[in-house]
């Protein structure tokens, strides 16, 4: 990465970086304008109205409501233009595209562990194809980190105990910096790496060249077996004593307490670590907690397995829709010893 010191922006290598730069240069322009305006006027006044005799007293100048209005409203309008522009780019980027490839990122002191959906693992390196949309699903094993790629103008904190995501579409092959941008302890400044953007064909070669590894979905399947999930959810997540898991992500889930939600990473994680917190309507809270038994990485693998499950034709809609026909022995009906 060649740099000369007249450079004012890092390389622009993603679909959003141009947009951010445009806004940045607009902001810089406005800043320059106001700084020059104010310092220019000050210098002008300071010279023009410098004190000439020791005891001169200038006439007081009355305030002006019109001027006050002027220099409140104009900056406000300019500020709003900045707000709308910035919020618009941000809002667009906050909604990941549907067809993105997913890559899993786990931060830990002080390295980045990355796994592609095809199974390749990398440490402190991320290989991605140019021109394809990539969505990162990130979590941390210890403290807060932050996955920052300056050339893509993206960054997001990576937190323990939950999943954050960000997405990008690289445009230009090359090697770019990857930084940890949230202070995380001793070797924070060493938690760096590189992002290698390749032509799609090169990337596919790279993938097949490293294909020996197990994909997270396969690893997840093994965990699904070994942890005994199969006993309730079936070998392919088709359901049984527990609800069907095929096609779970993005599906509306109805809970016993009358609430509904859309299943996402956070919900599935909670379902595994604290199953009785949100119980699916029509089921008993019999699922044991797996908190402490699965690492964040294994959780990701299980999720990836659940995502890979195909919805087979004959689904039991009763499992997810509130149906009056199913006799739902919900939480409230469970007999509990009375205290009084």
């Amino acid at each position, binding site marked *: 990465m060649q740099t000369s010191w007249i450079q004012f922006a890092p390389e622009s290598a993603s679909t959003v970086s141009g947009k951010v730069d445009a806004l940045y240069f607009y902001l810089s322009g406005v800043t320059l304008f106001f700084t020059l305006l104010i310092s220019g006027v*000050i210098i002008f006044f300071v010279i023009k109205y410098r004190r000439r005799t020791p005891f001169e007293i200038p006439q007081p100048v009355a305030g002006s409501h019109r001027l006050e209005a002027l220099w409140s409203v104009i900056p406000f309008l300019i500020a709003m233009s900045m707000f709308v522009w910035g919020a618009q780019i941000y809002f667009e980027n906050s909604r990941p595209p549907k067809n993105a490839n997913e890559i899993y990122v786990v931060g830990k002191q002080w390295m980045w562990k990355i796994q592609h959906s095809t199974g390749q693992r990398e440490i402190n390196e991320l290989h991605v194809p140019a021109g394809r949309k990539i969505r990162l699903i990130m979590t941390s094993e210890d403290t807060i980190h932050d996955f920052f790629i300056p050339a893509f103008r993206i960054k997001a904190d990576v937190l323990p105990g939950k999943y954050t995501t960000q997405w990008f579409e690289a445009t230009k092959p090359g090697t770019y910096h990857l930084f940890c941008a949230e202070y995380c302890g001793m070797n924070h400044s060493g938690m760096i790496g590189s992002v290698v953007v390749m032509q799609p064909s090169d990337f596919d070669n790279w993938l097949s060249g490293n294909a020996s590894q197990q994909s997270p979905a396969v690893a997840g399947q093994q965990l699904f077996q070994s942890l005994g999930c199969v006993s309730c959810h079936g070998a392919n997540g088709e359901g049984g004593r527990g609800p069907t898991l095929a096609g779970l992500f993005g599906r509306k889930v109805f809970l016993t307490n009358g609430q509904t939600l859309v299943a996402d990473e956070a919900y599935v994680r909670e379902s595994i670590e604290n199953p009785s917190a949100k119980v699916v309507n029509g089921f008993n809270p019999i699922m044991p907690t797996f908190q402490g038994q699965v690492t964040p990485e294994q959780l990701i693998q299980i999720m990836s397995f659940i995502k890979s499950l195909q919805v087979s034709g004959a689904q039991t809609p009763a499992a997810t829709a509130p149906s009056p026909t199913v006799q739902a022995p919900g939480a409230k009906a469970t007999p509990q010893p009375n205290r009084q």
Partner: protein
Amino acid sequence: MKEFETFETPTAARVNYLNAEYGLKSWLLTKDHKRIALLYLGSISVFFFIGGLYALFIRLELLTPQGDLLSSTTYNKVFTQHGIIMIFFFLIPSIPATLGNFLVPMMIGAKDLAFPRINLLSWYIYLLGGIVTIWALLAGGVDTGWTFYAPYSTTFSNSYVVATGVGVFISGFSSILTGLNFIVTIHTMRAPGMTWFRLPLFIWSHYATSLIMILGTPVIAITILLLAFERISHVGIFDPANGGDPVLFQHLFWFYSHPAVYIMVLPAMGVTSELIANFSRKNVFGYKFVAFSSLAIAVFGFLVWGHHLFVASQSVYAGMIFSFLSFAVAIPSAIKVFNWTATLFKGSISYDTPMLYGLGFIGLFTVGGMTGLFLASLAVDVHVSDTYFVVAHFHYIMVGGTLLAYLGGLHYWWPKITGRMYPEGWGRFSALVVFVGFNLTFLPQFVAGYLGMPRRYHAYPPEFQVFNVLSTAGASVLGVGLIIPFVYLLWSMRYGKHAEANPWHLPGLEWRTSSPPPTENFFATPVVTWEAYEFAPPEEMQVIGKFREAGLEVTDAPIGGQP
């Protein structure tokens, strides 16, 4: 009137607050707000030098890309301690506890603050907090960053987090007590005739600052306490293992710490208003707008804290609300900047040292504030958050803004505080050095930040070295520029020219008593019959003899002394 009425002590009985009593005990047990201000001035300067020493190490380490001077652990402690000391033990108390303490009663015509004992207590609390913190630093230091983010601080850090937290917690109470004292004083102790709109703007800005101190500081106190207990008990409410949310810590922390940045800048704005008006001998343009913008900043400043959480997994919608409000809160600042500029129009502007600092403040605050808008702009903040762009932004406001205003204020009121003049030539020279050094230090950091250099980095990719070399060079110039006033101010306390009661010939109440003032501030309770910044008409101003009649010592020197 039309020539400044004074409430001086008759020349025969020139006892002032400095020579009223002697001995260590008379200082350590004093209830005089002026002496307490000096106690604060001394201790704050010590902390500033400690913080500056840390800055020196930061800059030396960053001279080269490799982390070769300090180990990474040490470096992390150094910037953390730099931040903690500079923020909690220097900048937050700086102007309010020294200049504010000294001047709030004098400017409103009171004999003292409403609760003199609490005022003294606040200094002892500050000192205790400082000592606990220094002890923690000596015992092994702390490496969490000044923001103490959980869960790093609660679980992963191996440093003296609890002790430092306790130090900061304690010092918070000194800030609360100062704010409380100011609010009650300004409400109940104004001299007859001193209506709200006759108050100097310095008072308005301190009133606004005090609001933030009493409404915000308790929240950081409880937050740090919960954090400390979480660390001790190994579980808690910020801990994801218990279902807690680390981001809650960030919300609570910034609920105080964003408004706290206005604690740091509002008093500086008050000083600037005084400097600009008095050194151009003009009433402040749009007095009421400047006064109310202070209150607006204090109130709206509480609505924007989420702009520190744009990339911290805060929700998109909350991000947009906080971004919008951050832009909105910039408007009162803009109003101030424009009104100061307009105040200069058709003034009689002198180039005395305080004025140079005041003008410097306007320029650098504008740059710092405008770059705050970059950060408030969501898409840009995603890129520059936690980079050197942020570092440059806040140093522009805190060093270029507040520190400069603090120095300006110190020079301006130095004759009143000590009864001596500082050497004007040296003053102007060092103001210039500080200005140049400062810009050289922090301007390159904007560029480095946008290029992607993350903050809190002990070692960095070599392509950023250019900027860091410039920055370190600038810091050396800045350091020299700061040491000069330190030396000559100390020198002038003993050898400086004696100051008159009103060396700048200004109408403010604090100038209508002797320099240094008597313990009771005024020989008699003043009755205020004039507006703020009401200068005498030129004819009368020119008759030096009138000053003599009024009991003032007037030299024939031009105003402001000579270089």
